[in-house]
């Protein structure tokens, strides 16, 4: 399928899970496709990075469910910051581990999972709808009942996949991608490269084949689809580009120019603009050194 098909499977008002972690292996091509669409009023569930920032900047987001939003090498995302500080988005903020258990509960079709995480913190006061549950056993402990984080749709980005939707993650951490898919009704994988099934085992060890087609409904080939976040071993984070993203976000005119240059066209246009920008930077630094 194509990015347009993927976006066609989404609808305004949906709860959308996005895989990856911070500024790492984010399904950015899908995010960029959403930016170009008419979709709006989304609830975004994410171990947040620039996916959350970009969607907030474009006014696509009603609510963010998060434990953090970070660019890793830069502590915070400027657009998410602005959206929170202007009251422009609703927020549900939970502990990282609670977030994991919410996805796991949804994947396992149970209403909640118990955890100590959250007790005593303001996670419980800013989310007054969160409940505790008492152990029915002799210990009688009262723990947080993290509710299932059901998703209408989820998108994750992987290094390789086959056409049937088996996904392969070649980097060191699969994060929680499997659980995002497990928690969702519509499940999409974007990938650097679609390869024949028999080639997957040549690309990496068996444990890298961690997304089974049981968990996926559609796969889209999007080379560079995690840019500017890291997608090792295919490519690392484009730190220079991430800095430009942050710098542009600080000024409305600069941001309009950034959108015009990089985000106005389709994914091919984006990738071409990035290549041009990288080449200019290389030429610039070459002259500087001469």
């Amino acid at each position, binding site marked *: 399928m194509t990015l347009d098909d993927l976006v066609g499977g989404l609808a305004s008002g949906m709860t959308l899970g996005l895989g990856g972690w911070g500024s790492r292996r984010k399904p950015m091509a899908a995010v960029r496709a959403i930016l170009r669409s008419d979709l709006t009023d989304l609830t975004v569930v994410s171990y947040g990075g620039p996916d959350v920032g970009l969607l907030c900047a474009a006014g696509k987001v009603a609510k963010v469910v998060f434990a953090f939003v970070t660019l890793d090498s830069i502590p915070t995302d400027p657009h998410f910051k602005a959206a929170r500080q202007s009251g422009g988005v609703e927020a549900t903020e939970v502990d*990282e*581990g609670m977030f994991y258990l919410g996805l796991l509960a949804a994947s396992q079709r149970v209403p909640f999972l118990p955890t100590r*995480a959250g007790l005593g*913190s303001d996670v419980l006061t800013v989310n007054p709808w969160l409940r505790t549950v008492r152990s029915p056993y002799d210990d009688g402990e009262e723990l947080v009942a993290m509710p299932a984080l059901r998703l209408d749709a989820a998108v994750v980005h992987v290094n390789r996949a086959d056409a049937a939707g088996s996904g392969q993650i070649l980097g060191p951490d699969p994060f929680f991608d499997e659980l995002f898919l497990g928690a969702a009704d519509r499940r999409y994988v974007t990938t650097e490269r679609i390869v024949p099934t028999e080639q997957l085992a040549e690309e990496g060890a068996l444990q890298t084949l961690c997304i089974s087609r049981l968990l996926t409904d559609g796969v889209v080939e999007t080379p560079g689809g995690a840019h500017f976040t890291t997608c090792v071993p295919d490519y690392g984070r484009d730190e220079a580009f991430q800095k430009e993203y942050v710098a542009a976000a600080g000024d409305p005119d600069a941001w309009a120019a950034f959108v015009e240059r990089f985000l106005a066209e389709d994914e091919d246009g984006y990738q071409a603009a990035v290549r041009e920008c990288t080449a200019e930077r290389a030429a610039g630094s070459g002259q500087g050194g001469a």
Partner: protein
Amino acid sequence: MTMTDDSGVSRAEYCAVACAEVFRVDGEVMASAFGTAPALGARLARLTFAPDLVLTDGDAALVDGAPPLGTRPEALVFESHMPFRRVFDVVWSGRRNLIMMASQIDRTGNQNISAIGPWARPKAQLVGVRGAPGNTVNHTTSYWVPNHSTRSFVEQVDVVSGVGYARAAAAGPEATRFHEIRFVVSNLGVFDFATPDHTMRLVSVHPGVTVDDVTAATGFDLVLPAEVPETRMPTPEELHLLREVLDPSAQRDREVRT
């Protein structure tokens, strides 16, 4: 190298050994350390008095030994795969000792990395609570604050991310069972909560800092012992490890100025 007085020891080096002390007594646990002084402290501890400590590569692996700051991934010796999903198994098992940073910390040990101002519409959105709520009720946690001021040491944090003693006690035995805030290390001194009501106490001041400097930079009343010692000197071995082995480019002195 013989060091007979503290004149040659930088503030950052005192901070690093103060952070190392966080890891002295726990044996075989996973050390997680955010910030330069904590990263150096964990490594110092591993190479000296805490040889069973388990260090991470900051990504998805446990590593052998104590690699110097900035070691290339190819040069690391991996012991174990530790993706984030498995990190939670370690956190919730309690086999972890952590130094987190704090944008705000208060007198009962609450930490804030979520937001400054009202949570509903913050004056400044920070990174988010991250794993702080779960960390603090599951395993020993300490804090590193490289910019001690009345803005970072506050009477009451704006959003309780890491749980302090009073909040844990109010939440009940489920929250206090595995809770320990061991130390707070700042660029001015070392603090703990070993007081009857678990409010923050000044343990030591780094050489060159007075008790008055600390109280003036703190937005609440610290418990002050009659005699406040100085933070201990790094040993000659520790100074050698810091300067020649772990951090030859002196990143530490850029995080904290002498």
